[in-house]
């Protein structure tokens, strides 16, 4: 069975071999023991120790003209995505739009966020257009614009949960999710919703709380030591940005959607899913659905099941941590530790998609010159090709395992630090850690298992 929206995937990874699987699992246990033994006895990451970086580079990077240029580039790319999707060829590989959305934007911004901070904030087309319109509207309406509505706390990150989930449905479930015109229409719809929400709650509030991609990339940018604060570029301790995350309603489900959707994409190639999916699809077909709709419904249920499993497993760990005492509610603990799942989500994406970014990302070479797929050659690169020999299977496996083990270390480091800050008794902190460590080992083992099952 092949995944629908994976019309873009010309080459898939080979499953990691058994010996490497064993080694990686041993590594995970090893670093867990070592970490428990050597980690610091006082919290170190709860304060970010952010320091402004002075100098010309910092001033240039945060200057108003550059801000306007970046926003304009983002807005132009948004227009190009919609235009190419509607007017260009409807072949998903020859059109600019599917590769740009699923590979360059969705995957490419992840490493950029981790290395350089919240890059998407600078290029976010919705933020740029929203601010531009707001600026003009404030000039036109001389009396000033009415104040935006107060953002309902109960909403929290829920709009982002819905947004990221629907994106995953487009990518992994919808049979025409890689169609250029479908993607263009979805982009238009999402833009319209975003502009209405920005008008209601204010541009910056919606960007910080509700706009799915801003929230998503901002989570990953918190791994980075680079942060712009009040218009000043500065450096902080790596990972400390995650400890400073203020979780609200929906933050835990958001992480469950992020980890669960990647897990489902990995498991969908595994025998455990390819064995049962046709039977489920046949059941829906017997109920009167068309074969295509039956398959979509099957995959939708699989995606939801994967997300609920991830959520349930985390809640289980939280209930364990609650059982050691300290008087915290399960909801409180779930939020206090949710930032530890961000490195896990990050390495799930890195391990599963880095070859897709590495190879399909090269398609930008010819797609930039011929975005509509009509034979034009704007920059003279329309004949460039993807070099599939860039990295072999062995290199891929080592990178994948390296990502997973690094994420494991980062996650349990954050959990350790938070436990020290949260519990006033060192004994309770240590015992709660065992539970969070079990959660980390569980997610890491799942990640390794998925890699060993890919295309098996």
């Amino acid at each position, binding site marked *: 069975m092949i995944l629908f929206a994976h019309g873009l995937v010309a080459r898939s990874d*080979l499953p990691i071999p058994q*010996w490497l699987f064993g080694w990686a699992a*041993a590594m995970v246990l*090893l670093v867990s023991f070592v970490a428990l033994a050597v980690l610091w006895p006082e919290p170190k990451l709860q304060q970010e120790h952010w320091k402004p970086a002075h100098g010309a580079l910092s001033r240039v990077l945060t200057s108003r003209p550059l801000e306007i240029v970046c926003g304009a580039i983002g807005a132009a790319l948004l227009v190009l995505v919609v235009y190419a999707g509607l007017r260009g060829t409807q072949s998903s590989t020859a059109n600019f739009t599917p590769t740009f959305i699923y590979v360059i934007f969705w995957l490419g911004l992840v490493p950029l966020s981790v290395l350089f901070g919240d890059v998407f904030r600078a290029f976010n087309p919705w933020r740029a257009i929203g601010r531009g319109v707001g600026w003009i509207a404030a000039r036109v309406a001389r009396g000033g614009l009415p104040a935006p509505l107060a953002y309902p706390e109960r909403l929290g990150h829920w709009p982002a949960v819905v947004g990221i989930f629907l994106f995953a449905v487009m990518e992994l479930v919808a049979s025409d999710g890689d169609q250029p015109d479908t993607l263009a229409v979805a982009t238009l719809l999402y833009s319209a919703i975003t502009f209405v929400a920005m008008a209601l709650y204010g541009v910056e509030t919606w960007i910080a709380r509700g706009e799915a991609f801003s929230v998503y990339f901002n989570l990953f940018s918190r791994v980075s030591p680079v942060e712009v604060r009040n218009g000043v570029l500065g450096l902080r301790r790596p990972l400390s940005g995650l400890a400073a995350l203020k979780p609200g309603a929906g933050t835990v489900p958001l992480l469950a959607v992020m980890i669960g959707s990647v897990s489902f994409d990995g498991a969908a190639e595994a025998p455990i899913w390819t064995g049962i999916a046709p039977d489920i699809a046949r059941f829906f077909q017997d109920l009167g659905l068309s074969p295509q709709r039956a398959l979509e419904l099957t995959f939708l249920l699989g995606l939801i099941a994967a997300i609920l499993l991830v959520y349930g497993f985390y809640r289980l760990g939280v209930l364990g941590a609650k059982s050691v005492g300290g008087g915290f509610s399960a909801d409180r603990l779930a939020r206090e530790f949710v930032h530890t799942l961000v490195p896990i989500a990050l390495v799930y994406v890195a391990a599963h998609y880095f*070859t897709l970014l590495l190879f399909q990302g090269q398609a930008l070479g010819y797609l930039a010159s011929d975005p509509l797929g009509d034979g034009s050659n704007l920059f003279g690169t329309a004949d460039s090709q993807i070099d599939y020999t860039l990295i072999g299977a062995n290199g891929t496996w080592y990178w994948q395992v390296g990502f997973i083990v690094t994420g494991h270390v980062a996650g349990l480091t954050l959990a350790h630090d938070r436990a020290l800050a949260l519990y006033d008794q060192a004994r309770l902190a240590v015992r709660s850690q065992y539970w969070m460590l079990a959660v980390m080992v569980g997610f890491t083992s799942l990640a390794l298992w998925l890699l060993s099952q890919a295309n098996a």
Partner: protein
Amino acid sequence: MSTAQRIALIVAAVVVAIVAFVVAGSGGDDEPQRSSATTSAQTDTGKDSGEPQATTETSPPEPAVTQIQIRDGAVVGGAKTIDVVRGDTVRIVVSANAPDDIHLHGYDIERSVEPGRPARFRFKADAEGAFEIESHVAEDAGRDPLVARLVVSPS
């Protein structure tokens, strides 16, 4: 956490490392056998297809040919996996009783097939990974387009 506990954990970590080394060391020996098994399976593919093979001991053998038949839009026997090692010369012959375009993704080789005129692929497998061979006619008709999967393992 007391110093004694910390030392105990470090000892546990060392034990895990030693056990892993021993287990991996004994398990690693069968690696060469596994890869030779792949090679023999691949030669079998050639024999199954009934293609006469040059089996003279001295000259290098012709690469095995994988035969795939598409009848009435369906792959006879279902889509199979073709296992090769990087550097191998791969030969695939696809025959069909209706016109079709057969596309090997990644290597990006496309061949048309007509009744009585099979599509012949012959290329050197220089990129590792799993690649799909698809039928464009099935894809356009909304059917499962998978004809076969080519798996290129490291040599």
